[in-house]
Structure formats: C-alpha cells, structure tokens
C-alpha cells in the first residue's frame, strides 16, 4: 500500500480514469508551475477497479477546473484548506474553456493575433463537441496532443 501525505491547501482530483492523470497534469500546465504534485496511478478503487489520483499543493483558485471538467466531468474535485476537505465539487462539461486548447486551423485569426485568448465553446453537449470561438474549427479528440496549448 502506497502512502502519500496529506496536503494543507490545494486540490485532490479523485476518480480519474486510470491512465489519464498525466494528461490532466499537462492540461493544467502543472509542468510549468512549482507546486508540489503527487501523481498516483492505478490506485485500487471499489467503484472503478483502478483509478488515478492527483494531489496539488497550491491556492485552489489557481487551478483551471474547466480544464478538468473538459477532460472528464466524472472526476471528483476535493478542495482542501487547513488539511481538511472543505468542498467537493461536482463537475459539469464547461460551456466554454479558455487557455486549454490551441486552435489548429491555420486560417484562424488566433494563428496571427498573439494576445487573444484561445477559447473553445461547447457546440453540441450530446456529442461533446467543442469548437473554436473564432473560426468554429472542431476540436478533434483523436489528435489531442496537437491541440494542447
């Protein structure tokens, strides 16, 4: 049994589908921050069999939870303060995500206007389709790596 210490302030992302923790790590740009991060892969779970867990010691407001919900709205987000869970957040597919994906369409204005935010909106909730706010290019799940910011 692996033991990872408690965090004082931050977030714990639980019930991550096994194998997706690193993806979320990158989507949240945690590789660019100096937060203390624990990534637990393939933890035993009664409900899921195997799951991943991500613990991040930081100000919870600094984490883009829309990005988490975009990847998997089933993930449980526990907000930690003073070493205790003060809130369990229920995720929903965000109507809009900012700064997570980069539009891949070479004809999009975002390819030349350096300062504008990269925004994607949920155009079809049933089919989980996101499109670029500017050019309406469809985000392609199959080419996920290419769309990272």
């Amino acid at each position, binding site marked *: 049994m692996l033991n990872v210490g408690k965090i004082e302030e931050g977030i714990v992302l639980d019930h991550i589908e096994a194998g997706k923790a690193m993806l979320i790590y990158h989507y949240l740009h945690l590789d660019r921050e100096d937060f203390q991060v624990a990534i637990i892969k393939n933890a035993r779970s009664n409900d899921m069999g195997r799951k991943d867990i991500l613990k991040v010691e930081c100000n919870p407001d600094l984490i883009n939870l829309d990005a988490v919900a975009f990847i998997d709205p089933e993930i449980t987000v526990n907000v930690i303060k003073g070493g205790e869970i003060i809130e369990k957040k229920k995720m929903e597919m965000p109507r809009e995500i900012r700064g997570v994906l980069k539009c891949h*369409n070479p*004809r*999009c*204005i*975002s*390819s*030349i*206007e*350096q*300062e*504008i935010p990269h925004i994607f909106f949920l*155009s*079809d909730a049933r*089919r989980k*389709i996101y*499109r*670029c*706010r*500017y*050019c*309406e290019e*469809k985000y392609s799940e199959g080419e996920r790596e290419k769309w990272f910011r």
Partner: protein
Amino acid sequence: MRHCLTPLDFSTQELDQLFDLAADIEKYPEKYAHACDGKKIATLFYEPSTRTRLSFEAAMMNLGGKALGFAGASQSSAAKGESVADTIQVISCFADIAAIRHFKEGAAYVAAEHSGIPVINAGDGGHEHPTQTLLDMMTIRQLKGRLNHFTIGICGDLKFGRTVHSLVKTLARYEDIHFVFISPPELRVPDYITDLLEERGYTYEECIKLEDVITKLDLLYMTRVQRERFFNEEDYIRLKDFYVLNKRLMKRAKDDMYVLHPLPRVNEISVEIDKDPRAAYFKQVQYGVYVRMALILTLLDIHVD
C-alpha cells in the same frame, strides 16, 4: 451595442423587420436620404473586394453619411504588424460603424470584442459572410415571396465558400427546406454544417453531378471555386471548371428555379444565361445595397418615420 458577425445574431423576426426596412428603402429612397447625415462608416478591407466594399460605401452615402477606410492589408498598419484588436480601437475614434473583411477566420469577432462602435463582418476567410447572406435571403424573399417550403441546391466550393456556410445556417431556421449539396469530393460542405442540419432536423443530400438533381430544385445557388483559398495551385486548376451552368442544363430546370451567385463569377455560369429571367445574380447586387442600408440603420439604432 450591437454587432453583425453572423446572420444568427438576428432572430427570424428581426430578419423579417430588416427585410421589410430594406424593401421600404427600395420603395422610398428619398425618405432615408439624410438618415445618417454626419455619420461615417469605416470599411476595413484586408482582402481585395469590389462589390462588398463599394456596396457598404454606397449604402452609407445613400443614407447621407460618409465612408473612409482602406482596401488591402498592404495599405493599412497591418503591414507594420498592427493587430486587428488595436486597429479597431483606433478606428473607433474616427467612425460610427465599421465593416471589416479579413483573410483570417474569426477576425470580425476579435474586432467586435475590442471595438467601441458596431462591427459588421464583411467576410472572414472561409468562415462567414453575413451581409451576403442577408442579401441572398432578401433576393429569395422578393423572388419567391417566401423563405420556407423549398428545395435549394448549393453548388461548387462548399468547403471554403463562406457565403454557403452563412446561408445554410440562416436558412436552417425556416420551415421545410431541403438542402442539396453539389460539389466535388474535395470541396464537400464541412461537417459542422451537416451536424447543424442534423441537430435541427433538416434533410439534406450530397452529390457530385449537377445534372442529376437540377430538375428537382426550386433555387440554385452557384459558387466560384476560389483560387485564394487553395494552398496548392494544381488542386485549384483541377477543380476550377468542375461545374459550368449553361443553357442545356437550364432547359432541364423548373421554370421558376432562380439562379443566385454571390459573384464574382468566373466560368461556373455561362454568360449565355444572363438574359434568362431566372438569372437573379445581378438583382442580388442591387438588393445588397438596400439590405446594407437597413443594417446600418438598425445597428446605429436610427429610426426613420
């Protein structure tokens, strides 16, 4: 403050009001001749255009206003690397309303986000061309007397043809319209358009040959294969004359199957059918001025009794 970035910025009821206003302008032009006295439109055209820019300028002048602007990115500060966001903030100090055409998709959206004046999208890359759609719709309404219950064929470059995308999205709010998309496989209509039709419960079909479907069409919307949208010249040359609408084909069409085209035309409509009463593409240009006059008045919230 209101902008016109896509035709969907207006409800069908608001579109009806806009077309009623345009029809009134056509009937009583003198009534509107001073409606925009002292107002200016800035036409910011980063891409070449004859019809659209002059149509906007004529529209403002017909209303008593003035026009200023540039035609081509090389004539603007874009050549020095200025962003669209900065340009529109500067232009907001000079003019009351702006019409922007840009080669990048979504440019008008960025302009509107940073603008102090109403922004009209006059075409953004292969994405949208809402005022073309408004004049297409008005032409259909004037010629057919309605905006519902018909089969419309849309032929040519359906992939990069922004007029097509705007028109389909707008028509797909009216009752009982069947869409027939006619294009070479390389220039098929994008999936976001067909997704939208499916979501809204509209029927459509896709085919390659115009002669296979022309007999069942109530309207035919022809488009040009646009050289400027291709990265590869060879592809353009192979596809540019894929469709040529001529007398032989028109003989098979219904007596009231009007032919629309956003212009400029190259070879896709033979000049031999220009005199055919069903050729409506030059009428569209005239309606374009009335619709743009109506749009300027609406966005500037100017009412004429």
